[in-house]
């Protein structure tokens, strides 16, 4: 963008400051404008709606006719056992999902990277990420059928192996629900999540591996000392970002796989917000839940970021 010699340009920045530099980089700024507008429209503009949480909001009335109620909605929220329960379930399931959703794809990517036959590697990769494109509705149907006590595959297998004498009602056991959801998630997303690690791995220079081989490092050693450190920054950035999303795990899985027997373990925040907020026309209450979610997410994000900054010197901010 600039034809000036480096020294000269540095001096001019110091002198003429920010606006000069902005003018020089105008094309970059132009390119960024659409995205800035996008972020504004979809991430900042809706924040106005947060005012609803402090009102007794009635649809169709103008902003100035709404009744203000202060923190009533939040008070109601924190006094509700179901909310506390939903909070616990959300955090538990997303933590389990986070742990499984990180380790499994990384291991998978590292192992897949070691496959030497390129056709096989591509084939496995394609097959493994295909489930990502199947909707949760279908996946839930498949899983419920597989775990069924009425001729379900899993139960038949276990029975034939004589591991159990009577079919296990997987979907009826509260304590299994978190595991069912987590494993379903792993099955569906492992291949897809591995793609980004595979991409990062392919960015590691082959000379490092060559040098290691010359030094006599085994394949396992190479994985441990070259591949994993090579994708460390990718892992950390993704980890920090997903910690920020811990609380907003959506509700499709829980909604579709759950039933009344496992409700105490399956109700998550989004489902709670849908049922007791929007579903009942309590827009203010729903917004209060949403605000609370955002605040918790922010705190989690900053905490995670801070820890990683200190420990590994890598961070996103």
């Amino acid at each position, binding site marked *: 963008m600039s034809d000036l010699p480096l020294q000269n340009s540095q001096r001019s920045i110091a002198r003429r400051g920010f606006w000069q530099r902005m003018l020089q980089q105008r094309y970059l700024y132009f390119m960024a404008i659409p995205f800035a507008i996008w972020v*504004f429209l979809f991430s*900042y*503009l809706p*924040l*106005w709606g947060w005012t609803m949480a402090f009102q*007794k909001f*009635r*649809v*169709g009335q*103008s*902003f100035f006719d709404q009744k203000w109620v202060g923190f009533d909605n939040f008070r109601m929220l924190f006094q509700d056992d*179901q909310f506390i329960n939903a909070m616990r379930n959300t955090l538990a399931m997303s933590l389990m999902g986070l742990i499984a959703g990180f380790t499994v794809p990384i291991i998978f990517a590292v192992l897949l990277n070691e496959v030497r036959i390129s056709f096989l590697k591509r084939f496995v990769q394609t097959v493994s990420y295909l489930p990502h494109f199947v909707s949760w509705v279908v996946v839930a*149907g498949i899983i*419920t*059928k597989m775990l*069924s*006590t*009425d*001729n379900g595959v899993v139960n038949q297998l276990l029975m034939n192996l004589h591991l159990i004498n009577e079919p296990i*009602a997987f*979907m*009826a056991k509260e304590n299994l629900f978190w595991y069912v959801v987590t494993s379903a998630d792993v099955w569906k997303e492992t291949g897809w999540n591995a793609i980004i690690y595979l991409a990062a791995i392919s960015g590691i220079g082959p000379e490092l591996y060559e040098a290691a081989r010359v030094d006599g490092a085994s394949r396992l050693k190479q994985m441990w000392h070259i591949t994993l450190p090579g994708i460390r920054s990718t892992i950390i950035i993704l980890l920090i970002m997903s910690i920020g999303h811990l609380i907003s795990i959506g509700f499709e899985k829980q909604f579709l796989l759950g*039933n*009344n*027997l496992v*409700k*105490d373990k399956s109700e998550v925040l989004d489902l709670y917000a*849908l*049922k*007791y907020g*929007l*579903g*009942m*026309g*309590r*827009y203010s209450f729903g917004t209060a839940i949403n605000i609370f979610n955002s605040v918790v997410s922010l705190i989690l994000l900053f905490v995670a970021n801070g820890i990683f900054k200190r420990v590994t010197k890598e961070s996103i901010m």
Partner: protein
Amino acid sequence: MSSMKRMTGLGVTLTLAVGLLAGCGGSNDDDKGAQTTETGDTSSADQTKTDDKSPITFSFFAEDANPNWQGMKDQVGQAITEATGVTLNAEFAVGDPSQKVALIATSGDYPDLISAKGDLSKLVDAGAMLDLTDLIDKYAPNIKKLFGDQMKRLRYSNDDQSIYVIPTYSGMDNKSFVAGGGFELQHRAVKEAGYPSIKTLQDYENVIKAYLEKHPTDEAGNKNIGVTLNADDWKMYISVTNPAAETTGKSGDGEYYIDPATNEAHYHFRTEGEKEYFQWLNHMYNTGLLDKETFTQKSDQYLAKIASGRVIGLIDADWDYSDGEKSLKSAGKYDQTYGHYSVMVSDKYKDNRFQSTGFTAGWGVGITKDCKDPIRAIQFLDYLASEQAQVLNNWGIEGKQYNMQDGKRVVPADVQQRIVNDNTAFSKETGIGFYTNIGAHYGDGVKDSTGNYYTKNFPEQIIDSYTDEDKETLKAYNATTWMDLFPNEDQFPIKAWGAAWNIAVPSDDEVNILANKMKDITWKWIPQAVMAKPEEFDAIWDKYQKTLVDAGVEKMEKGFTRYVQDRVKLWNE
């Protein structure tokens, strides 16, 4: 950290700026609202438009799914479009309809016509609905004729006496001829038991038990299933919780039992006899007669089981399991289809499921304030309430789906054959029945100007729709229709409050929140109680009852009682 501070500052500035913008946006909306009403007024003054039959398309949203809907390209639909010029661009709810209505109410982007069933209050609160009182008065002679003196039941509430919907979910002067609920048993099971009297839970259980003992598996070696229930989402009401009220003589008021003497509402799970019902389910579960998957299966698994013919007994309504039964019929397994029986916890209760509610207004189609032409819309609804349209919707087109022979409407044998055995394709082609819940109509057993019944549900016609196996079983019980096995509506007084399930509670009332809480509690505890070990049942039941009380069930009952008493006043003054 300083960069953080700057960020926050920026955030605040942005929020404020946005506040200004949104403020302006809001007032714009108001202007638009005012304009719409103005145009509405001018067009209502324009009397020349009354006979307008030019093509017009109305958008329409309905809470009930209609998977066979053909966009009015079906034969009946085309006839309606021809008569009125109206085509409906219909959208039907997928998934939870009340959430969809909540979204419509918030978005402010309303369809021209909407059928929101019990969620009407959300739209009314949002100011989305048009008061139809004047429109009906000016442009809807058929509707006026149809409702006659029951018109006062169309009013919304004591405080707001507007008419927001044309009730379309119940037929005027309806007499029950069809028994589609109760307890169901496969014909082969009752036949093998020698057609015993089936009046109590014990009778019902005996038939199933005897059949399973003799035939534990089907031909392919898969296990036969005694009873399975559909507990998937709201079907829970139909198949699991409502039967508890029905088998103890407290049918028809949803989650409540209304004391006819005092008009007081009670959460029905707290009333007498219900514990025995669930204890019986618990017993069925523990003896292996109730499907172990009852509370975990989804609707499609449930239907698949019925379609396999392995399920001996059901406790459900025919419209919920009919998709499974249809497969049995097309496979020719008629002896594995079901008959309906009036089963009570014990003989001290009397089945009141056919007790008359009078005309149950409340659920129906309304016109929104966004409607481009409310007059054409009311005329369309008025046409649907006409004799011509009702016959069209119920019987089809003369010369095609029915013929007039000696002044009587007769369905040709080949058409009847298709209605019974090839229903889906037949419906899609003809559109018969698609418009029932869109237009006001007479109920079963009412005769039109030609002396024929409006609907196809009258004893002679119903018998035609039965299979030979149905008839065989009925004959053994000395009955001609399933209805004959249930106590008739003449044996009960008319309910002054109509039906509790269609009493609308304003969306921000605490009763709603409490009702949702009670639903969550009940739906969690009932499956647990049913699946408990027999000796633990009592303890779990007591805990369930206590949880209800702790969650404020008494407050909810008191709150709802007020609405019941208001309704009694509104409808009977």
